[in-house]
């Protein structure tokens, strides 16, 4: 759960970068406008989640899936997002599959090692978990520079 209200904000540095990339070069976006877009994005997530959840509930499912999110986009009249979303999901799934194969290989390697050295492989598992975490600290640093 979110412990502080600012946990429900999206990182300003990333939002700013997305806005800049979307607009023509040299457009000045006021600080107030950036904040407003960031808040709008959080509200968008909540609205999409609530719509998607309605579809899941209708189907008597407890877990939101990709079809629920796509149906939510249609209901919210963001049909223009459907095609890019499907394409992105395709790419994402391919990437995940690649990752799985890599970790499968690692797992097998580990199992071999496990037979000889148990403690050592436990340490390695910890290392990998840390690698998966989002580098949010970096984003914050970036923001300071821009302002």
């Amino acid at each position, binding site marked *: *759960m*979110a412990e502080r209200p600012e*946990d*429900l904000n*999206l*990182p300003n540095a*990333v*939002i700013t970068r*997305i*806005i800049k990339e*979307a*607009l023509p070069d040299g*457009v*000045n*976006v*006021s600080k*107030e*406008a950036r904040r*407003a*877009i960031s808040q*709008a*994005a*959080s*509200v*968008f*997530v*909540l*609205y*999409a*989640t609530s719509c998607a*959840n309605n579809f899941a*509930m209708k189907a008597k499912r*407890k*877990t*939101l*899936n*990709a079809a*629920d*999110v796509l149906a939510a*986009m249609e209901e*919210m*009249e*963001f049909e223009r*997002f459907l095609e*890019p*979303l499907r394409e*992105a*999901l395709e*790419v*994402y*799934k391919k*990437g995940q599959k690649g*990752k799985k194969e890599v970790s499968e290989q690692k797992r097998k390697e580990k199992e071999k090692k496990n037979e000889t050295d148990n403690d050592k492989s436990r340490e*390695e598992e910890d*290392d990998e978990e840390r*690698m998966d*975490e*989002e580098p*949010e600290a970096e*984003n914050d640093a970036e923001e300071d520079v821009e302002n």
Partner: protein
Amino acid sequence: MSTHTAADKDSAAPANNKTISLPISRVRLIMKSSPDVSSINQDALFLTTKATELFVQYLAVSSFNNGSGKESNSLSYSDLASAAEETDTFHFLTDILPKKILAGDYLKTLEQMQDEEADN
């Protein structure tokens, strides 16, 4: 082993950056703040994150194109508030993007209303 994992990470990072730039973990936190939601699968989480990026682009571009700052090359709060009011798909944003009015203008309309009441 440590050099091994570092190399793996480098090869995976550019592909990830291409598809998504917002942190998935943060989007999950926002989604989970909704009390009805019990669980979200990985694809749904990815799609919502990607959709949010598309939404930010779309909101920025349409506010700029329909806004008043095209000549001065700027995007201001009032352009966003107008977009929320005038575009159907952005209507759900009117609560968090209220149109701003000057205190002076507000007082004038208030006076007018009082005058009308006095006339009646």
